[in-house]
């Protein structure tokens, strides 16, 4: 993954960057499989590697495939990135050790889900039970987010086209006049 990231930074051909981004997503998906989160791995492989790559390629088709030369020094963005990254790493220092049974998140509702999910929802997959039943509100929110994103993209991109058509029509009517 580190090699892929260095490749992304060094590459100036945006086509290569998009493909490397897809490769990074696939690697991340394998990491999720190793962590026993197959659901997340499937989502990462499908959305991250599949959909995003396709959409980025569609965008590349509309723009140029070479990176534009930098107009300003990269010092300030680099500083912001380093500060944010540093803050995030500092935040992880306080987290409890990974995967211990007496961690706070394993003490609260997780044992209840694990013990009762199959009995109460007849669904052997606890993830599905939690997603759809115990946390239905959350999932409804997520679906609404996707809905909103889709509507937003549709409105933004179809409006531009309509304006193009109006401009074309105006040109035509002038010609007629």
């Amino acid at each position, binding site marked *: 993954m580190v090699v892929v990231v260095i490749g992304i930074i060094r590459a100036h051909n945006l086509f290569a960057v998009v493909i490397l981004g897809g490769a990074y997503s696939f690697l991340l998906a394998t990491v999720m499989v190793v962590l026993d989160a*197959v659901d997340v791995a499937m989502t990462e492989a499908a959305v991250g590697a599949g959909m995003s790559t396709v*959409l980025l390629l*569609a965008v590349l088709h*509309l723009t140029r495939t070479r990176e534009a030369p930098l107009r300003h020094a990269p010092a300030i963005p680099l500083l912001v990135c380093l500060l944010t990254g540093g803050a995030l790493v500092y935040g992880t220092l306080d987290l409890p050790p990974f995967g211990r049974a007496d961690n706070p998140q394993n003490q609260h509702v997780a044992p209840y889900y694990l013990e009762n999910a199959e009995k109460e929802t007849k*669904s052997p997959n606890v993830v599905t039970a939690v997603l759809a039943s115990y946390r*239905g509100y959350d999932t409804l929110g997520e*679906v609404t987010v996707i809905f909103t994103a889709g509507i937003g993209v549709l409105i933004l991109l179809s409006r531009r*086209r309509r304006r193009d058509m109006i401009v074309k029509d105006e040109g035509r009517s002038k010609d007629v006049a």
Partner: protein
Amino acid sequence: MLRDTVILRVVVKLLLPAILIFALYVQFHGDYGPGGGFQAGVAAAAAIILYGMVFGIDEAQKVVPRPIVNTMIPLGVLIFAGTGVASLLLGENYLDYSPLGSKPVKGQHLGILIVEAGVFITVASTMLAIFYVFGGRADEADEKEGEG
């Protein structure tokens, strides 16, 4: 356009049913194995997108027309939210599926199934809609290049 590559066309035609079946498997097997509406939705959309990339967006829109996609986006959310309203009307909390079946467990099972279907519809159609919009613009750019 990739339409002229014979190998790609044949492979896509062979793969399409497999991908769609896999999407349905992920959808309806979600209770038992990994998966659910989100993953299945993306997989199903990916099948249509693959078709659209190889055979052209117009052909894909013959299979799944744009108006249908656009109505499916809110339809999925409506199904999800409507399930909650249905359980409200049956005298339980919002999105508590227990009263939907004869026994609470059956109700939960049915509720999860319906809600996942709603998720599937919204996710698949949103992905497709975004692809149609982007791809449509790419086609327009091609036409402009052709004119100029």
